[in-house]
């Protein structure tokens, strides 16, 4: 099977998934407690006003009518508007998404740079002190709460040393240096957590691969141990790690809420929390829909990477 054919097939399977996701996302509004019309009416809380809002936003219509109206607009990029500040949901998302995306990419880089080498060392030195230390490091990374690490970093680098800004976010096109500085600590906080997960999976995969018959073959061929590990073993051990990394990346896109709060970063996390508090269905649906779509696309990317690194996939059919 060619890469093109594989991509087409995977793309085709994305469409029904997206439809299913959209139904779930839209149904969520039924599950969020509270009446959006009452929330929107605000101070002028009388039945007449509420009823007016219901009619205006179509809340009085049957569920499926509302859904089709919504999905019809979503397809052309219209997620509706926030009733609080009258901003288009799409615009809101487009201003927040790059912030979260940049943070997620930086965190992932931190996670991979720390996680993969630590995992390899933990596997190749499993019987020595070094391996134990690597394991401990991974466990610490997973266990430390984000808010605690974030506050400690702020105390050290901002309050005591004055090296890094304690909070805030500057877009890269305004001031690249400030932008990078403002993302260092949040990326470390998010990255070390993910690094722990990646370390443990890399270690597990490496241990399995290092005891495989083909690694024994490589050693019998007289290949240097360094190349046995970095070429023969790692190439195969990375296959599950790639899948894991893309899923972790998706988590970073939607799960940075706490870290974004600590460092006052105006990203997705803050947007969605505010939207839930104010019962802004249009915003919640839009954000969740976009996040879910990104997640599905990331899975698609993971599949393609998996295909590229794993030759066995290429002969799989059906």
């Amino acid at each position, binding site marked *: 099977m060619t890469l093109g054919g594989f991509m087409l097939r995977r793309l085709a399977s994305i469409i029904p998934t997206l439809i299913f996701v959209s139904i779930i996302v839209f149904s969520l509004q039924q599950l969020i407690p509270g009446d959006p019309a009452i929330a929107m009416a605000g101070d002028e809380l009388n039945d007449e006003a509420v009823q007016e809002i219901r009619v205006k936003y179509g809340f009085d219509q049957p569920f499926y009518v509302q859904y089709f109206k919504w999905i019809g607009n979503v397809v052309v990029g219209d997620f509706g508007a926030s009733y609080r500040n009258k901003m288009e949901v799409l615009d809101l998302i487009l201003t927040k998404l790059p912030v979260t995306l940049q943070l997620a990419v930086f965190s992932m880089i931190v996670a991979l740079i720390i996680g993969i080498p630590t995992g390899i060392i933990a596997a190749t030195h499993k019987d020595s002190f070094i391996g134990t230390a690597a394991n401990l490091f991974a466990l610490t990374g997973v266990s430390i709460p984000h808010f605690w690490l974030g506050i400690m970093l702020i105390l050290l680098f901002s309050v005591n040393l004055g090296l890094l800004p304690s909070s805030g976010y500057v877009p890269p096109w305004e001031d690249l240096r400030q932008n990078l500085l403002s993302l260092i600590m949040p990326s470390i906080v998010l990255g070390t957590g993910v690094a722990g997960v990646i370390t443990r999976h890399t270690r597990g995969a490496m241990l399995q691969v290092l*005891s495989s018959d083909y690694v024994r073959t490589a050693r*019998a*061929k*007289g290949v240097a141990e360094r190349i046995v590990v970095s070429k*023969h073993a790692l190439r*195969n051990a990375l296959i599950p790690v790639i899948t894991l990394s893309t899923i972790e990346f998706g988590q970073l896109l939607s799960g940075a809420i706490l870290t974004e709060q600590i460092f006052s970063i105006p990203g997705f996390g803050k947007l969605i929390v505010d939207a839930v508090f104010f019962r802004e269905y249009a915003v919640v649906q839009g954000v969740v829909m976009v996040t879910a779509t990104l997640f599905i696309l990331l899975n698609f990317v993971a599949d393609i990477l998996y295909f590229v690194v794993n*030759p066995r996939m290429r002969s799989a059919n059906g």
Partner: protein
Amino acid sequence: MHNGTQTLRSSAAGVSPSETFAEVSTVSAAAPLMSVRDLRVSFPSEDGLVPAVRGVSFNVLPGQCFGIVGESGSGKSVTSLALMGLLPPGPGSIIEGEVNFGGRDLRRLRPEQMRKLCGSEIAMVFQEPMTSLNPAFTVGDQIAEVVVTHEHVSVRAARARALELLKEVRIAAPERRLDEYPHRLSGGMRQRVMIAIALACRPKMLIADEPTTALDVTVQAQIMELLRVLQGEYGMSIILISHNLGVMSEIADEIAVMYAGRIVEQAKSAQLFENPEHPYTIGLLGAIPMPGRKRLASIRGRVPDLHALPSGCTFAPRCPFVEEACRQIEPTLHPTDLQHLTACRRAPLDRVL
């Protein structure tokens, strides 16, 4: 003969078994290519140290095919991996003894020196062709890698050599196979690729650990035939490890029978088949399917647990010729005939029967 009787005497005089064996094994005039002396391997387990190989000594002459036969757990595979330094380096494992190869003791070489030898002068073919090739690299890359590792040649030259090797191992459509990944190849084809990898640097010694066990019977014969032909073409020595005496008979010049971590009988191939001395070997020979043989004999009992080896002869609990004395002292390998060694105090059995 002269040498044999001498050793018998010196053995009685209290010389250690491994030393006497060294003398016996050099009956032939040629200097051995590989000489293994008192190899011992133990693995740690929950119940203490497991002795997998308990003092194995043998010589392999240049151009000779030396067969090691035995059941699972007899220590034959562990022996072969120990020769290559390929045993998993887990904590607590103990490997002792000497492996002399071309005037050097492989056991004393630094890892870097051993690495240079592996794949170039000593090569190995494994039991599991399905899993022994790296799934992430093409067949051509995996063959060329050995050449690039040991010889100062360009990648292009290494690739040309890979193609040449695929032709030498008689693989169908070698040009196409070069760029294929292992999963596209059958077990027999993969084993041919493994042999191509092993032969890439024209080794002096090939260690083949059950090279045909995982393959279909028809393919088994083809691979054995290929090994036989290539041994002639390359003039290399082969250590062939198998549980199958039938496979051995086709190619081995000399055969050592292993049981519970020791060699219990060793002789020239023809001698072993015609005149086996050890009751275990006799049992094994009775288990070979042959035309006209209606029922296959089986050896009663099971291979002893290495954790709790019986005292005296380890085969005693299964032996039809056992005497009380057999359970007292473990017999050492001693000459029972010309170039024929047996570790049985009742051998030669002709006297018994």
